[in-house]
């Protein structure tokens, strides 16, 4: 026999208590990302310099009062560039993953519900995509479409939806066997209603958690492509490009690459913490 859930009455006080009981990882992640978001939205309020302005008098200047995090080989202020990069990198995180997420979730839900040969065909597509080294495929697609962020989004989307679809399909397959799905059918609801109104909200959790990781990975991918020159285009500041810029100065001007690296790590940490926290939260809610 199963344990009877305690009866709970929801008063405002309880709600507040529950808020306080949010997983600490979730709160930490949310705070990091909130700060990142502020930096992304209002970089000019915090950044001391124009991120693209050259200063021929301060080429490769080490961190000092004038340039808190030093300057790069163009004399651009590293701090300002790191801050201004927040906008672009968060954009990468979101835009590179949202299309994949959306398409993947929808397709996954349909595939998971349909089962049968639809699922078998889908299985082969998944095999094909995961069989191909992801980065190589993205590079190839970007090479076809031309470098630049938009094309990178497309490339990542073309490949990435499969992972979401797989996650959601697997979960929908589990959920559709549960009684509440049958209940929907017994009530005479149409399949689309059952899929999207009933099954999907209960199947999307792993996809959301994966999404968080994926956003962190997208930033890294963006930086790898930036390193290869296929990502963000100059003069935009983007952490990966900044790190690539600083590669030749690792010994002489470490600050060019280290600080954007720190920004990536912190933001990645934010996403993972949020993901872990969400997973925990959604798990305990169940």
């Amino acid at each position, binding site marked *: 026999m199963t344990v009877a859930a305690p009866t709970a009455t929801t008063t405002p006080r309880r709600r507040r208590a529950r808020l306080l009981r949010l997983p600490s990882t979730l709160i930490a992640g949310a705070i990091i990302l909130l700060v990142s978001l502020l930096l992304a939205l209002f970089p000019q309020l915090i950044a001391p310099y124009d991120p693209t302005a050259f200063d021929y008098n301060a080429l490769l200047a080490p961190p000092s009062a004038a340039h808190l995090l030093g300057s790069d080989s163009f004399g651009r202020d590293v701090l300002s560039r790191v801050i201004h990069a927040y906008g672009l990198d968060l954009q990468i995180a979101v835009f590179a993953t949202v299309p994949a997420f959306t398409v993947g979730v929808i397709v996954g839900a349909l595939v998971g519900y349909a089962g049968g040969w639809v699922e078998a065909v889908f299985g082969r597509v998944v095999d094909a995509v995961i069989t191909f080294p992801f980065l190589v495929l993205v590079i190839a697609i970007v090479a076809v479409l031309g470098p630049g962020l938009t094309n990178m989004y497309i490339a990542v989307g073309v490949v990435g939806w499969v992972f979401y679809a797989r996650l959601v399909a697997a979960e929908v397959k589990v959920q559709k066997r549960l009684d*509440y799905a*049958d209940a929907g059918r017994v009530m005479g609801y149409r399949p689309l209603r059952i899929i999207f109104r009933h099954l999907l909200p209960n199947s999307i959790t792993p996809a959301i958690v994966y999404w968080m990781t994926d956003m962190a990975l997208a930033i890294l991918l963006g930086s790898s492509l930036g390193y290869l020159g296929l990502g963000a285009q100059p003069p935009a500041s983007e952490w990966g490009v900044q790190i690539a810029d600083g590669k030749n100065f690792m010994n002489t001007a470490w600050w060019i690459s280290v600080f954007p690296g720190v920004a990536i790590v912190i933001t990645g940490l934010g996403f993972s913490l949020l993901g872990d926290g969400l997973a925990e939260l959604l798990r305990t809610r169940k």
Partner: protein
Amino acid sequence: MMIPMNDTVISAEEVSKQFTLPQTMSRRLRGAPQLAVNALNGVNFTLKRGETLGIVGESGCGKSTLARVLVGLLDCTEGKVMFEGNDIAYLRGNARRSYNRRVQMIFQDPYSSLNPRMTVRQVLTEALHVHRMRPRAEIPGRIAELLDLVRLPDDAADRYPHEFSGGQRQRIGIARALAVEPDVLVADELVSALDVSVQAQVVNLLLQLQEKLHLTVVFVAHDLRLVRHISHRVAVMYLGSILEIGPTEALFSTPRQPYTRALLDAAPELDPTHRTTSVAARGELPSPINLPVGCPFNTRCPFAFDRCFVERPLLTERGPMHRAACHLTDFGLAPAAVPPMQTEAVS
């Protein structure tokens, strides 16, 4: 208590259901036929308006499958389910939806049968709205009525399922089914997951509702005491077949099938002074993939004789509305006439 046994609402005629199992490569290579689970094998019964039919049997005997076939969640492989004179397999469009509305199901698992992300109000609104049971404006009022009907507090409407106990959830499930004003309720193991004390609350509610709303109920359970308590008539299932069906009193006092008797003997009595050390039935349920030839119970039946291994017994009259499927047509009649159940202790 009089049962208005006038007209038949729903009936099963020779209903069979097979689940084909995925063919494995090695079997395909050997050319072996595809395996199938024979979940239902020629089930017949009729259900009168306002009556409660209990269905008992051991795990895997096809009770849930039968329930699902009745509400149209599964199509039967052979035979048909008739509702008010129509074969439900041929219902389409509005007729089908109307059938879905009028024959409702309540589920066993209080945890999985409610969408965890919808509040009670959303669940009920959806039901009322999709079937246009009430105009939009009247829906909140109707929800309050329904909650009152299943005796849930008013503030329950805006809470999520996980905020309720198992018994309360079952009541939400019942409210959902009742929202569309059905004629027939199929309850699959409605209270099996609940604690005894809570079980009693739900059983009481079901009894009250049935009286009040003149519902027809199919009550599926493995707990004999419960089925006996709640049903007008009881069907005993074994390996996808009904082995005995009859009015509760008759069936429990004079079981006419060895399996029914084994079930009754195996259920522990609430009487500590009444103890046996003998085992009621040996062995386990055979696999529904390879059904025994002849009587399905022949592998475990202490009375089985030659005929039981070749010919499948049909349900035949044993009394008023009481039918059993056993070649020993006298079984259970006069205790003296039948050899005592061979009992043996395990060791």
